[in-house]
């Protein structure tokens, strides 16, 4: 779950990290009012779940309240990599002497937490990693041990920061690690972490991704409410379905994440374009199936529907009855192609056979079913 910058900063502030005062707003008037309260100069920053805000003109310095009005007007509604700006963060501007980079994330290969620190901040860390990898100082933290101040100090020493920044950086890194672990974050990134002319180390940006699986330990409602989903994803989310919207015309319903992913691959292989990823999980009863069909059917781009079910524990006849029952509940506007395989597939197919027509077809293999669905969607 991606947090906006301002949410990330509020999250960091709870763990005692120094962040700038600011206010989150949604209108030009509120932006101006916030700037008047905070006092100029301020930064006007677009709040979007994507990178490259600066380049897209989504981050501006405002010396006066008039500047705030102008920038807020321009930035609200701006399209940044397909994300329309609806929220702004108005923040007290900081003087910058140096820009650094700091982050924690999970290194899946090493199965340890990876800390990265660089004296080259303010730019894409991927670029630094590619062009000058020796400028990133890395440590791997065993989750059982955690991060000690001694280790953090050695780590900072290796990063060749300005000596004035040492104490402040050690302090922030210790707190960043605590925020990352206690907050169940997938990523905690500060870019840039700045050294001010007065010698203070300060958090100027925050990129935080939280692990939705840890919601039993944290209240994530506040962040869930600001997640940007398209309408289809919102509807599927409300039904508890695992759904990802894509831009093709073949609607997909499959049981299991791997099979659903594989279904998209096969549709693509035969020249079709999937409209979505949708995993209905292990079972395929009428309730789940009708919910899934509803979501797919409401997508105006969908021209054909491919239901790909492999019966494991769930038997073929249960799946077939589930599909038929669901079709009674939802008025389907696109033809459906079913591929049913696995446990008692023969029995399942026998139940479907009398119902087949132009709007409901059946194929025995995944590849053939994909071909028919792709053809129907053209």
């Amino acid at each position: 779950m991606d947090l906006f910058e301002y949410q990330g900063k509020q999250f960091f502030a709870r763990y005692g990290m120094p962040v700038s005062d600011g206010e989150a707003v949604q209108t030009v008037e509120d932006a101006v009012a916030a700037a008047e309260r905070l006092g100029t100069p301020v930064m006007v920053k677009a709040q979007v779940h994507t990178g490259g805000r600066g380049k897209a003109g989504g981050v501006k310095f405002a010396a006066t309240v008039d500047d705030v009005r102008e920038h807020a007007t321009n930035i609200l509604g701006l399209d940044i990599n397909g994300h329309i700006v609806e929220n702004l963060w108005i923040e007290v501007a900081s003087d910058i002497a140096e820009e650094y980079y700091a982050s924690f994330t999970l290194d899946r290969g090493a199965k340890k937490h990876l800390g990265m620190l660089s004296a080259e901040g303010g730019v894409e860390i991927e670029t630094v990693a590619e062009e000058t990898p020796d400028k990133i100082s890395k440590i791997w933290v065993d989750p059982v041990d955690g991060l000690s101040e001694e280790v953090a100090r050695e780590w900072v020493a290796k990063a060749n920061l300005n000596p004035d920044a040492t104490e402040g950086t050690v302090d922030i890194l210790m707190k960043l690690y605590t925020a990352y672990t206690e907050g169940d974050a997938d990523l905690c990134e500060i870019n840039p972490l700045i050294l001010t002319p007065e010698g203070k180390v300060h958090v100027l940006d925050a990129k935080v991704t939280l692990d939705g699986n840890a919601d039993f330990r944290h209240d994530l409602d506040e962040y869930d409410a600001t997640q940007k989903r398209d309408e289809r994803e919102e509807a599927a989310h409300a039904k508890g379905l695992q759904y990802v919207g894509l831009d093709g015309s073949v609607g997909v319903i499959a049981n299991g994440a791997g099979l659903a992913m594989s279904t998209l691959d096969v549709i693509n292989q035969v020249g079709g374009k999937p409209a979505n990823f949708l995993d209905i999980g292990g079972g395929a009863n009428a309730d789940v199936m009708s919910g899934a069909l509803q979501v797919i059917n409401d997508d105006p781009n969908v021209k054909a529907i491919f239901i790909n079910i492999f019966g494991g524990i769930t038997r073929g006849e249960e799946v077939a009855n589930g599909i038929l029952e669901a079709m009674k509940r939802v008025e389907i506007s696109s033809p459906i192609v079913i591929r049913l395989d696995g446990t008692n597939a023969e029995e399942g197919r026998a139940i479907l056979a009398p119902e087949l027509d132009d709007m409901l077809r059946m194929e025995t293999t995944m590849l053939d079913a994909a071909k028919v669905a792709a053809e129907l969607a053209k």
Partner: protein
Amino acid sequence: MSIFLDENSKVVYQGLTGSQGRYYGLLNRDYGTNVVAGTNPKKAGTDVDGIPVYANVGEAVEATGANVSCIFIPAAGVKSAVMEAAEGGVELIVAITEGVPAHDEAWFFNKLQRDYPNVRLLGPNCPGLISPGKANVGITAGHIAKAGGPVGIVSRSGTLTYQALYELQQKDIGVTTCVGIGGDPVPGTSFIDCLAAFEADPETKAIMMIGEIGGSAEEEAAQFIKDHVTKPVSSYVAGVTAPPGKKMGHAGAIVSGGKGTADAKMEALRDAGVKVGLNPTEAGELMAEIVAGL
């Protein structure tokens, strides 16, 4: 032979008294798995369809000689369930539960490695494993697998594992063991662990490996195959068409920063001499060719 699990395995189910635990525990017993116990601190002394329930894994091990634990505990309790199983003295822990926080997984993976280096963890968020004809632990439908070998299967995806088992069964090809390692960021058992075990198992003559997008486990496996595996391998990697930055169902299945793409994984596997199919059926057909040539 088989790997990790055989007819001598004695299994205790943590969460046997819950609906999922009971359903699959009994199904596993019907298959022939030696289901010896369940645990629930509040229901010690009772039984589930004749299977005795103990307060914890340690007591179950003491009373029954259980050496495998299967976890059907809700996500919030998995961290302590895994440690209870390790402390209780089992050799293999199979954690079926999905939705376990990544920080918990990273923590108990390292804790086990340090304090219980001989305990194998499979999962979390995995379908379990089956050695057809001998034992089935987890949620795999046992009857879709043909017993006997010569193929060993390792997979990151549940339904694609079933698909693989089924395709081989349709072609009358048997399986020594099928291991579902699960789709989470920190799996307890890796592709490499399974490849090494299959390489060492005399009855396994060929290996089928099913991967998916995200992380670098398939690339690492490819390197391991190149260096250490003499047996032929066929493979399929799901998610060629997955858009970057979108999590495809599994917590671990996400292409981020241009890394973890299916194309890169397939290329690494081909480079290691693996026969790569573009869909599960094709991987099954490639395996049938391999088996015919053995």
